[in-house]
């Protein structure tokens, strides 16, 4: 038996050793990373008198309203079943919000009267979706535009909804090919985009009664994205990459369909974001992102505003996310790679910047890790951009690495706060994100280089990236995990089966396991979209062999390393029985696979509890497979 003082002494020694080992990096609890947003989705009422935001109540996001006149802050809704999904203000000081009842596969729409704080269910749709669209017409303050696939689950029609009476009037019935609508500053839809899948057409109508007539046609590899009408010249602003590689901001004439002039372009990357003020009818800024987002201002007063804000909030990336109709008050969202985001209220009158709230105040930016943009050359000489987040307090060599290929594949990873990345980095892993070919934002050529390259050059890019990290001695070649959702999940599974020695384990969320099923998601009546799918992914009939060769569901015998799979049973795009069969086969072949099928979840886990469990399991899984093994 140890006596008391010596026991104390030994425990002190153990404690000292332990703390030395951790190199002073505190293990931030999973719940701090993945809890529901504390305060988010800040909006200003059009009259500038209220600020609204979402805040959890009983674990669900509920609406809160703060008066800017008397500073009163009140909880406006008390939903305990499902969170507020989306909301906006009407000009009549009503809030319209939607709720997704996942268990019943139902969408509900509510109005909230700000003065009385009464909520009313004005619309429900079973087995369909309601999307809040916009409200721009100040002359009809009770009218809001919504999109619904009530008539046909395959496509959305635009409806006009009176939030006072609940009256629903179809505004624009979709003949079946409209994929996007571009309301003008008065809320009229005069520009739409149709797509037959392969070719996209921009259509224009002079007023709501005139028929649409085509303005320009482009292949799906090209892109024309209308922004708004210009005030002169019968033109509209658009992001276009027709006849150029990188998307630029241009003016297009809606009579002739010709591009009138280029307003702004970046040489390294597409212009991906345009800030347009419908109140003042002007473009304020554009942004492109190669490594980090670069802003270019087209309105000098906004640039001044931005500079002023930057002086007060140095090192932060800033975005204006809300404003009142008079543009006297702005909601500013500030973030970094280590800050999940903070909302501020800026008042032009007295140039006052007030902090409104944090998305997540539990994480301290000083404890988090920097996300560095990196780039490497692939075996065929293509420059690939990515981001590398190294764990704090460790030398940048021989680190265990988690590779995170993004979903898509026609998407990208961006610089900014990512809780998964920060969580893994805090646990001592270097996190490597790769914008492989096919990723968006790097120009047309880079994007189309990824066509039909799933399991081909896309996978090679990921492999090359990992090898680059190994050659730079940053990665410990024996401790590399691959972790991804959707297409990223496919990359993880395919990487495991083709490079079994490279990865020691894989984590898959809502993984794509069968390309036939993936392609099947496009219903056959959308022939053109199928054509596009065939061109980008492969034709399931003629390329059957290739698709079979890469689809993990056919090759359960090739995956040997430990696997962790998460799936929400209500994920509309997933084929659960196929996934079950896949897991069953894997188990039969002796692959150590842990499978979590959560009944009331879609793709992304909404329930805080499920999210905590998932990341807890991920931490344990990585600990077991990356630390214990030599």
């Amino acid at each position, binding site marked *: 038996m140890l006596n008391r003082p010596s026991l104390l002494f030994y425990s002190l020694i153990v404690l000292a050793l332990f703390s030395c080992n951790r190199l002073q990096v505190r293990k931030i609890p999973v719940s701090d990373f993945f809890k529901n947003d504390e305060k988010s989705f800040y909006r200003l009422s059009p009259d500038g008198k209220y600020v609204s935001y979402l805040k959890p109540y009983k674990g669900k996001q509920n609406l809160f309203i703060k008066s800017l006149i008397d500073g009163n802050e009140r909880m406006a809704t008390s939903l305990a079943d499902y969170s507020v999904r989306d909301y906006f203000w009407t000009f009549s000081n009503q809030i319209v919000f939607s709720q997704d009842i996942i268990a019943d*596969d139902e969408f509900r729409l509510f109005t909230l009267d700000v003065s009385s704080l009464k909520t009313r269910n004005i619309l429900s749709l079973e*087995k369909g979706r309601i999307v809040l669209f916009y409200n721009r017409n100040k002359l009809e303050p009770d009218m809001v535009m919504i999109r619904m696939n009530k008539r*046909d*689950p*395959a496509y959305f029609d635009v409806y006009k909804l009176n939030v006072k009476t609940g009256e629903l009037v179809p505004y624009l019935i979709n003949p*079946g090919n409209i994929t996007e609508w571009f309301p003008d500053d008065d809320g009229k839809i005069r520009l739409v985009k149709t797509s037959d899948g392969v070719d996209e057409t921009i259509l224009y109508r002079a007023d709501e009664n005139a028929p649409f007539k085509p303005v320009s046609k482009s292949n799906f590899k090209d892109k024309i994205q209308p922004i708004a009408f210009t005030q002169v010249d019968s033109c509209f602003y658009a992001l276009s990459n027709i006849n150029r590689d990188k998307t630029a901001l241009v003016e297009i004439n809606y009579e002739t369909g010709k591009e009138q002039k280029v307003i702004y372009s970046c040489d390294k990357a597409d212009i991906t974001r345009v800030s347009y003020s419908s109140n003042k009818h002007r473009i304020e800024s554009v942004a492109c992102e190669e490594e980090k987002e670069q802003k270019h201002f087209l309105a000098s007063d906004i640039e001044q505003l931005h500079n002023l804000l930057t002086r007060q909030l140095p090192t932060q990336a800033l975005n204006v996310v809300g404003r009142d109709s008079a543009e006297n008050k702005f909601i500013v969202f500030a973030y970094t790679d280590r800050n999940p985001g903070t909302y501020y209220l800026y008042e032009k009158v007295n140039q006052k910047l007030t902090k409104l709230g944090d998305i997540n105040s539990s994480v301290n930016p000083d404890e988090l890790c920097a996300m560095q943009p990196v780039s490497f050359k692939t075996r065929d000489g293509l420059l690939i951009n990515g981001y590398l987040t190294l764990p704090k307090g460790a030398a940048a060599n021989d680190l265990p690495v988690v590779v995170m290929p993004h979903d898509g594949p026609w998407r990208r990873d961006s610089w900014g706060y990512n809780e998964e990345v920060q969580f893994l980095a805090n646990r001592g892993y270097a996190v490597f994100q790769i914008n492989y070919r096919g990723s968006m934002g790097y120009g047309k050529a880079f994007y189309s280089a990824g066509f039909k390259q799933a399991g081909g050059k896309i996978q090679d890019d990921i492999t090359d990236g990992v090898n680059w990290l190994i050659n730079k001695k940053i990665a410990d070649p024996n401790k590399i995990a691959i972790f991804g959702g959707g297409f990223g999940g496919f990359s993880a599974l395919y990487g495991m089966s083709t490079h079994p020695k490279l990865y020691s384990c894989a984590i898959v969320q809502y993984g794509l396991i*069968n390309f*036939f*099923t993936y*392609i*099947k*998601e496009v*219903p*056959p*009546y959308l022939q053109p979209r199928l054509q596009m799918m065939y061109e980008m992914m492969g034709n*399931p*009939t003629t390329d*059957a*062999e290739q698709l*079979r060769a890469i*689809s993990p*569901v*056919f090759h359960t015998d090739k995956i040997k390393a430990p696997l962790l799979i998460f799936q929400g*049973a209500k994920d*509309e795009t997933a*084929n*659960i*029985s*196929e996934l079950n*069969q896949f897991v069953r*086969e894997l188990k039969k072949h002796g692959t150590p696979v842990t499978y979590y099928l959560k009944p009331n979840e879609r793709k992304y886990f909404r329930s805080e509890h499920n999210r905590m469990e998932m990341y807890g399991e991920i931490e344990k899984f990585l600990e077991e497979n990356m630390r214990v093994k030599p």
Partner: protein
Amino acid sequence: MKVPQSIHRKNFKLIASFLFLISATFVVALFIAYDFTSNYVENEFSSKKIYVLEQTVKPYNDFFQNRIPEITFYQGYLDSTSAAKYSKSVFKDYPFVTQIVFYDVQISSNYLGKKGLGVGIQSIYEYKQRDGEVISLKKQQPDNYNDFSVMADKLDHFIAVADTTHEPAQDAKFKTFYDIQPEKISYLNIPRREEIKRYRELQKGGGRSSVYKQNMVTFILDQNAIKIKNAYPELYHNISIRPVVYDPLENESANITTEVAFSGALSNYKLYFSSPKNYLTAETNHRFMPIAGMVLLIYFFLVLIGWLIYRNLNINLKLFKLQYDFINNFTHEFKTPISVIKIAGSNLKGDNELSERQRKHYGKILDEEADKLNELMNKLLSFTQLENKAISLKKESINLNDFVRGYIETFRIKYPDFRLDYRIYEVDSFYSDPILLGSVFQNLIENAYKYSSPMRRELYIYIRLDKRSIIFSFKDKGIGIAKEETNNIFKKFYRIENQYNQNGSVGLGLAFCKELVNFMAGDIAVKSQINEGSEFIVSLPYESGNNLNN
């Protein structure tokens, strides 16, 4: 000397009964073991068939559970080319699939004016394997339209009642998308929930007119191509696939048979196992051998232990006999001097005046007999001492010539009819314990005199060196020792029974000599021929007396 016979007899009875008992047990054990083995083999014959069935239908189950559902993975995108590739892989892995009929099925709202879900065939391909190549044949009409119509009706019904909010249950899927006929399995790829919803709309007459593709595949199986995996060739001489109704009538029940039915698409057939009776008997024997061997081994082991116990008893008996002998001898030995002393004592005690001559005579007798007793006691004592290694050597240099001469002189006086001579070669002195060596000399010389017929009492001693040893040889012309006795004469209390040792012998002399010589790290041996004479050879490690003296 007599040993009571009763001991022997009792022993023998015990041994006999023991032997009898274990032999009986042995036989019984063999019988039981054989019976048991035979039963076991029969049991196995009827129980192991399940395992054989499992092994035999394993490829079929694998095909049914993995390869058929793989069609769904293609989500209806199979066409004639990819179906041919699929067929080829099936033919390769599962030789019992002889033919695959591929239906490219179209689902539309109204097919041929039929109400409900329009399920029609766009094209039919038939795949067969010939010489490792897949032969594909486009067909206008299916050979058996029923296959398709059954499946189409099932799908129609399923779509009508399906609950589109949930994933269809396993059994509903099985009932709808599989059609299992004898030697034929039809399978329709299972549509996703999305498609089921759309089909439902088509069925109701709504939805958008479009054509959906489904794949139906019919597999024709040949039960005879199923490879029988006889995992127990020792049990089943012949396994065959027979129709369920197969039941041969055999006159003599020379064969033992059993059977087990297939399930699923093969349910019209069964596995029929038969083995000739002697086949099973052979197997029984085969399995019995090691058991019998084991029993035999145990039996021999028991017998061995019995024999060891018997031997042990025998040795004890001999020992007992020896000790009995010894006591007999010794009491006799002690008795003679004691009785002489007694007579002398009683004479001395008598009333008659003793003459001087008488007194001297009695005194001499008493003295002599006391010496005799003393000598006996000493002998016994030193012997036990020697045995227990309780004495120590007191070595000194011995002049061999003087030493031997001394003994010869003594014995010449003692036995005037004893002819003694000696010779010493190349050696003068010897370093040893004179008393112990003297005892050896005395015993051997005494024996030579004792075991010689009166006319041939001669002893020739000669001493020589042999390498590192010194050899003392005592050669007489006595009665000699039979060859079979030469090993025994050095044992304690052993005496050859003859006329020469009726008196004054205990059977300790030679044993004592041997003990002495061994004690001095030497050896004693005897060469003898009966009626010719014996030669006792004592060899001792030679240590030169001179060196040590200096």
